[in-house]
C-alpha cells in the first residue's frame, strides 16, 4: 500500500471528492483484496469495500494521525470483512469461491506472470485460506500477502503480539497438516 500524502487526507476529510478519489485509488486494491480473501465471495467483497470507504469518508475528519493511515485502513477493512464473513456464515448463505473473480471482470495487477499462472496461484491461495478460521486467515493475509510486521498486525487487529504469533503458528501448522493429508510427505509431530 502506497503512503498517501497528509494534505490529500486532510482535503478528503474536508469532503473534497477529488482528494477522496485519490485515497480510493491508492488503497482500494488492498481493501478489495483483503476483503475478497477473508469473505471468499466477490459480492461480499464489493459490499465490504463500499462499506469500508463510506466508513473512511465519515470518520476521516476524526482521524488524529496518531496511528498511520495504513494501519487504520487495514483495521477497518479486516474488521468489516470478518464481520461480514461471520454474518454470512451464520446465515448459511451459499458461498461462491472467488475462482470466479477473474471471470467477473476483476483485474489482477500485472506482474509479468501468465494469466493461467496467476489464476492458478489465486485458486491455490483461496483454497489455502479456506482451510483457516477467520482470525487465522486475517493474520496470514496481513503477514504473507500484505507483508505487515508482527507489531503492525497486533496494532491492526488490536491483539497482543503473542496472540499474533500463536495465530500464525496454528494457521501454518493447519496448512502443513492439510498438505500432509493431501499427500505431501512429512512426519509432522515426530521428535
Amino acid at each position: 500500500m502506497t503512503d498517501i500524502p497528509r494534505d490529500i487526507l486532510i482535503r478528503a476529510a474536508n469532503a473534497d471528492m477529488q482528494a477522496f478519489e485519490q485515497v480510493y485509488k491508492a488503497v482500494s486494491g488492498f481493501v478489495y483484496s483483503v476483503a475478497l480473501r477473508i469473505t471468499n465471495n466477490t459480492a461480499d467483497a464489493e459490499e465490504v469495500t463500499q462499506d469500508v470507504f463510506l466508513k473512511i469518508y465519515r470518520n476521516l475528519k476524526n482521524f488524529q494521525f496518531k496511528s498511520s493511515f495504513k494501519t487504520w485502513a487495514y483495521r477497518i477493512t479486516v474488521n468489516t470483512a470478518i464481520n461480514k464473513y461471520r454474518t454470512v456464515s451464520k446465515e448459511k448463505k451459499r458461498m461462491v469461491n472467488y475462482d470466479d473473480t477473474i471471470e467477473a471482470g476483476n483485474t489482477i495487477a500485472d506482474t509479468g506472470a501468465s494469466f493461467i499462472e496467476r489464476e492458478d496461484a489465486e485458486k491455490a491461495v483461496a483454497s489455502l485460506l479456506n482451510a483457516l478460521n477467520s482470525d487465522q486467515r486475517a493474520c496470514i493475509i496481513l503477514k504473507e500477502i500484505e507483508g505487515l510486521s508482527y507489531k503492525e498486525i497486533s496494532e491492526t487487529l488490536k491483539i497482543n503480539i503473542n496472540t499474533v504469533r500463536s495465530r500464525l503458528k496454528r494457521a501454518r501448522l493447519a496448512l502443513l497438516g492439510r498438505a500432509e493429508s493431501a499427500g505431501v510427505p512429512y512426519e509432522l509431530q515426530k521428535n
Partner: protein
Amino acid sequence: MNCKKIRDLITTDYIDLQLSVALQRQIREHLKGCGQCRKFEQALRQAAVEPFKMAQEIKPPDFVWERIREGIEAEEAETEGLFLGLWDYLRGFLNRRRPVFALSTALAAFITVAVVINISLGSRKAVNSYFQEQGEFLSGLAVDTGSNPATNQADLGTSIEEYFL
C-alpha cells in the same frame, strides 16, 4: 535447545525473520545437523509460506467506486434534507402558532397590568388606613388633654409617674 523448541521458533519467528541474529544463526546451525527439523522447515515453507508469494493485489470493479460516490452523495443529500426538513418544520410551526403566541402575549400583558394595578391599589389602601389610624390617635390625644385633667391624671397609672408629675 531441543527439536520441539526449534520447530516452534521455525513456525513463526525464524520464518518471519523476527529473531535476533544470534538465535537465527543458532537455528541455522541446528538445521544443518538435524534432518527431521530441516525437513519440517522445508515442508512448512512449501505448504504455508511459498503459495502466498504468488498472490496478487486484486482491484475492485469500476462500479464499486461509482456506488461509493453515489452512497456519499446520498448521505450528504439526506443530511442536507434533514436540516432543510427541520427548518421547514420549525418555520411551519412558528407560522401555525402565531395566533396562539399573540393570544398568549396579550394574556400575559393583561395579567401583568392587572397585577401591577392590584399592587398599587393595595398599597394605597394600606397607606390610607395608616394615616387614618394615626389621625384618629392624635385627635384622641388632643381631646383627652384639653377636656379633663383629673381624668388625665388618674389615667397616668403608677405611683412613680404621680411622683414625678
